[in-house]
């Protein structure tokens, strides 16, 4: 099924492909890589729990330009009131200036869409794009690199700070059925800079389409990044995404990954700690119902001494949903005094729901503090009795206790509007029940 992608690539290259030789070269090597390795198979350790056949048995071609452009009102329900921030809206993978709000002008801060930045910041992108999320990682990353031409671009110069979060909203509409979009995002925070990006993946209507997204974030010395990814695709859609956070000395990053949508969702989060004194926080919440499959593969590379990471991922599975969590923590021999804590907790609301959870600690330094814990369980009967003894019956009690389980992650979300927006989404989701 790879042939269709190669044909599509040639067509895309003819129609206004890149002029910059570095980009042409990168895309060419990416498609060649894909041609050689194809999609990941079940024999590969990192993909062995996934059933990718819904994606690999058909050919998703580039999404068309939306025929009936949605209005600001259509997308308003996906936005949050974020003081000092702005929203960049992408429709079927293409930037829509009409639906976006202008970024505040701040000295040292550039926010735009990537397609525009390839013109204005070609040199910078030439140095960085594809250097972190490498095409060798998987056929999906190779395809995104070959095709991805738009997404959010953020550059914060040394010591500068964004005035609020950039919300990149990737909207799919009905016309995307059977097609694919390749959002590609790039964030560069120079030394001492700070910035925040929220990525939302949403659908105007139900539909079966593929989103294959890659985000590369570089967090310079002493810089601070807050990155959130909210995956709310159509429940018939497929979403495969990679977020790569590369951190330099004394930097700080917080990552949120919330997955509610898609028939099949695979989130890869790779964090590389490349310098002393780095801190990283990784929070995740995933909910599955019906026959949804949601997979989070996180990988933290402790490559330097005195770094600490804290990771908490929680899952709520109902119906016949299937979740996968794989949390890799790799500590190199140099990375003494590493402090890494990983927790994955899963709540099964139905007998048919299933979780495969696997911590994967590979530690080659001797003076480290690394802990992990994974649990899979159902609601606490004692807590349920406590609620009943106050007149709260089993249905409402189940919603309250499930919400309470999710709240540990939701409470950590930055910005009151984002937090309350997601609290409402999770509550509504619990209200809808196991199938919806």
């Amino acid at each position, binding site marked *: 099924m790879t042939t269709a992608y190669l044909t599509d690539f040639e067509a895309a290259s003819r129609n206004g492909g890149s002029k910059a030789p570095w980009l042409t070269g990168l895309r060419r090597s990416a498609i060649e890589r894909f041609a050689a390795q194809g999609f990941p198979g079940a024999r590969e350790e990192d993909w062995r729990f996934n059933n990718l056949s819904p994606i690999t048995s058909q050919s998703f071609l580039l999404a068309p330009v939306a025929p009936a452009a949605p209005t600001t009102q259509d997308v308003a329900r996906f936005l949050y009131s974020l003081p000092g921030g702005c929203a960049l809206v992408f429709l079927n993978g293409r930037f829509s200036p009409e639906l976006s709000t202008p970024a505040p002008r701040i000295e040292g801060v550039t926010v735009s869409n990537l397609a525009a930045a390839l013109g204005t910041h070609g040199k910078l992108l030439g140095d960085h794009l594809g250097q972190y999320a490498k095409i060798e990682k998987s056929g999906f990353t190779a395809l995104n690199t070959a095709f991805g031409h738009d997404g959010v671009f953020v550059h914060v110069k040394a010591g500068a700070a964004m005035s609020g979060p950039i919300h990149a909203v990737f909207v799919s509409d009905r016309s995307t059925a059977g097609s694919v979009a390749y959002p590609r995002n790039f964030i560069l925070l120079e030394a001492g800079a700070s910035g925040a990006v929220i990525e939302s993946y949403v659908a105007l209507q139900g539909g079966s389409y593929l989103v294959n997204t890659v985000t590369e974030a570089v967090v310079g010395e002493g810089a601070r990044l807050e990155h959130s990814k909210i995956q709310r695709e159509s429940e018939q859609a497929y979403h495969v995404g990679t977020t790569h956070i590369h951190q330099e000395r004394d930097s700080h990053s917080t990552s949120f990954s919330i997955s509610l949508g898609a028939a099949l969702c695979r989130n890869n989060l790779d964090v590389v700690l490349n310098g002393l004194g780095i801190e990283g926080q990784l929070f995740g919440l995933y909910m599955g119902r019906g026959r949804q499959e949601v997979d989070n593969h996180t990988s933290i590379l402790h490559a330097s001494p005195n770094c600490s990471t804290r990771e908490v991922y929680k899952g709520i599975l109902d119906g016949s949903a299937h979740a996968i969590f794989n949390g890799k923590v790799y500590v190199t021999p140099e990375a003494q005094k590493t402090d890494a804590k990983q927790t994955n907790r899963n709540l099964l609301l139905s007998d048919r729901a299933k979780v495969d959870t696997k911590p994967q600690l590979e530690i080659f330094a001797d003076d480290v503090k690394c802990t992990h814990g994974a649990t899979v369980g159902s609601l*606490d*009967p*004692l*807590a349920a*009795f*406590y*609620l*009943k*003894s*106050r*007149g*709260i*019956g*089993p249905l*409402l009690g189940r919603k*309250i*206790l499930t*919400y*309470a*389980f*999710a*709240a*540990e992650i939701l*409470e950590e979300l930055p910005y009151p509007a984002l937090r309350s927006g997601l609290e409402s989404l999770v509550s509504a989701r619990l209200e809808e029940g196991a199938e919806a």
Partner: protein
Amino acid sequence: MLQVNNLHAQAGEKKILNGITLTVNRGEVHAVMGPNGSGKSTLAQVLAGHPAYEVTEGTVTYDGQDLLDMEPEDRARAGVFLAFQYPVEIPGITNGYFLRAALNELRKARGEDELDPIDFMELAENRLKLVDWGPDILGRMVNAGFSGGEKKRNEILQMAILEPRLAILDETDSGLDIDALRVVAAGVNQLRRPDNATILVTHYQRLLNYIVPDVVHVLAAGRIVKSGGKELALELEAKGYDWLTGGPRAA
């Protein structure tokens, strides 16, 4: 109001209650005392419908209804309240949300309108005074990170808001310092009315200095071995339990 007749209950294979018979009338306060393992907490939990216990024999009638045939939530809606010995922590849910949800379930069962957050706050602020607390406590997560004393006080706050007709306090006094004990006791006393009743399950007599019972029952090995007036509690304080339970005499 409550008639317990020959009640037998067990946890798994272990028989704990071996034929309890007792009657509680409106307006009365009953103290249920006894040494550890006598079954007094089990009695409290069985009345509330705790799933860990199985009733094997006997009947419980509450306001003419078969209490044992009712789900725990229906017992609560009918006015039965258990103050837990070990209140459950529910991080992620605020006390205020929890209390309003519970009150509204009770109100719906009575055919009354649900309270919106504003009306609820008004009611709650009034009841908070009973336990000498400010409104901040409503914003904290249910029992999470509470001290032992705060948890017990929170049970009394729930009781003040839900206004049960039959309140069962399961060792609410254990682990409390004297100030917390006074606050808890004052709350219970102010909630006493001629049409409701209270069962105090306690190991120690000291709570009864603050809440004066009408009847005192002594449990041993899952049976009531003696019932009497409030002076029985004082006698227990002086002589211990052994003269009633047949255990070794205290020196």
